[in-house]
């Protein structure tokens, strides 16, 4: 078992009190597994991903445990986490490809990063060149500036960079979102390739785009308003989802080949609740067509079938 997260809660400190975008979250990711995390903006998916590697000054660890390869990650201790970052666990934050320093060539960026983690770059550079060829880039990208590369190339450079030391876990936050479909595919397949070759043991792919996860992920975790709604293998999430939120989210996606005069799609009415003052009970209650009085108490995130977890009273076995 590569990653195990138990009852993790992370809060942001704000002037009007703590806001809790990750609320009692438990899941695990097996070796070789690509787990997708899906949810709308504000669902807490990015906070979840970031919290496993770096808690910034606004973030507070309220409780819970993160285990990586059997050992506990000291996620609340910024200094102790340094030893794990890049070597054991890596994060590609949102907009990472726009954050590459434009005044440094790629070669220099990578050398700086390795030095800051006390890695001698000689042997790593040989491996880097091998991988550059593998993802279909030319070795001369090393001598280019980030702005000379296209979005897809930059995103592949960030992928190479963050997996260079073969971490156990890579967290990729919206890495395909700003890309065109053909580039999306190339970056997505790069991630699959890295997993297959063992450059990373497991991946957490965070995106709002369920159809990308249908291509990449082995399992999908659906988040809603800071809590887990559903987790199952990808095929089950797409073909037989049990949580009403997952069902409605899937129903709102237009498929290629569908036109307005053939089938009218519907969105989900309403908006997610504010996390500053979340409602009691199930947080999807106000938007849910199946809500009943029991939804006033929070449904547990329970395993209803092997590997299929749902937090919904209607889905739970009686």
């Amino acid at each position: 078992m590569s990653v195990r997260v138990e009852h993790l809660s992370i809060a942001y400190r704000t002037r009007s009190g703590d806001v809790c975008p990750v609320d009692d979250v438990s899941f695990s990711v097996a070796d070789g597994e690509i787990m997708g995390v899906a949810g709308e903006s504000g669902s807490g998916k990015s906070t979840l991903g970031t919290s496993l590697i770096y808690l910034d000054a606004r973030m507070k660890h309220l409780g819970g445990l993160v285990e990586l390869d059997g050992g506990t990650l000291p996620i609340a201790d910024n200094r102790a986490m340094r030893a794990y970052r890049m070597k054991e666990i890596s994060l590609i934050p949102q907009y990472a490809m726009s954050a590459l320093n434009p005044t440094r060539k790629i070669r220099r960026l990578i050398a700086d990063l390795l030095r800051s983690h006390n890695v001698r770059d000689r042997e790593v550079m040989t491996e880097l060149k091998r991988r550059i060829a593998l993802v279909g880039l030319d070795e001369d990208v090393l001598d280019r500036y980030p702005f000379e590369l296209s979005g897809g190339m930059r995103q592949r450079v960030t992928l190479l960079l963050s997996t260079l030391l073969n971490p156990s876990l890579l967290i990729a936050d919206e890495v395909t979102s700003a890309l065109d479909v053909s580039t999306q595919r190339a970056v997505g397949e790069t991630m699959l390739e890295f997993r297959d070759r063992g450059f990373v043991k497991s991946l957490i792919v965070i995106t709002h785009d369920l159809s990308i996860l249908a291509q990449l992920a082995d399992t999908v975790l659906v988040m809603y308003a800071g809590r887990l709604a559903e987790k199952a293998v990808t095929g089950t999430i797409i073909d037989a989802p049990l949580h009403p939120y997952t069902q409605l989210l899937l129903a709102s996606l237009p498929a290629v080949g569908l036109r307005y005069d053939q089938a009218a799609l519907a969105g989900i009415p309403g908006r997610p609740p504010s996390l500053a003052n979340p409602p009691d009970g199930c947080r999807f209650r106000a938007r849910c067509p199946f809500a009943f009085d029991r939804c006033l108490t929070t449904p547990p995130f329970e395993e209803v079938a092997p590997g299929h977890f749902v937090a919904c009273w209607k889905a739970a076995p009686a």
Partner: protein
Amino acid sequence: MTSMLSIDQVTKLYRTSSLGGGLVAALRQVSFDISGGEVVTLIGESGSGKTTLGRIVLRLASATSGQVTFDGRDISEFSGTRLREYYRHVQGVFQDPFSSYNPIYRADRIFELLRGVYFPRLRGQQWQDKIEAALHAVALNPGDVLGRYPHQLSGGQQQRLLIARALLLDVRLLVADEIISMLDASTRVDILNLLISLKRAGLAILFITHDLSLGHYVSDRTVILRRGAIVEMGDTVEVFSHPRHPYTRNLLAAVPELHKKWSPPAAGATAEPGRSAANGEPPAPGRAGITSLTHRGLARRQASAAGRARALEPPPPLLPVGPDHLAAEAEP
């Protein structure tokens, strides 16, 4: 149907002085028409020139050659009252709704700004009724949005408010440039359905997007743009069910679908030339391998050099390949 907006041989050249100098063609002899009440989707990847074309239609940029006519009149000649009348009929909504608002004013100021120019004589109550009718048309509750600041509104509400602003005018053509790509899936479809109901009420829409499934869902006709030139256009169903140009086919093959895994691309169907082949390292079994896909960036250097040379020569002609369906021959 007679065409309302006609884009005729529009070419746009940009001068690139910083890197090497020379001309880059953002649009190469683009021609198509939009009729009243018709939704035309303009699909292209980044750098294809789709936004430039939208800007030219909105007179935010000018064409280097060719012309755009609205009701038979060349829009580049409009000024003063004529231009104001043009904007009464043609309006744009863009990708990032938040950047369309001034964050220090309340969001409904966008309506007041219009009032001064277009409705100076409207009395208070009439004006309020007009606003409420427009908000009603975009399914917003006036109480939820009036008097709020932009940051208090969701992305979907902001985008609807901008569409309502366009509806206050006697708008006949809406240029919608990636208006839903920043919205969540659950609100996206509502905006799409709103566009469709406006279309049914007679509004023509130029829907600019890189998302093929969204484009297919809303549009009557589809235009596929690649590096500034049209490679394929025609009836949406026809283009999507019988794509002829290898670029279109490749785009369609790359669309992530819920119930279908990416299939290996057809041999020779790569979208861009100049991709580099990986040396050694066979691809993992069972997949096409990442190396067989497009690597546009590497192609960029050659492409921009070639593009410069090609800037002034015509793109391959569009030939009829089916009913209401034109496609260009593949460029080498």
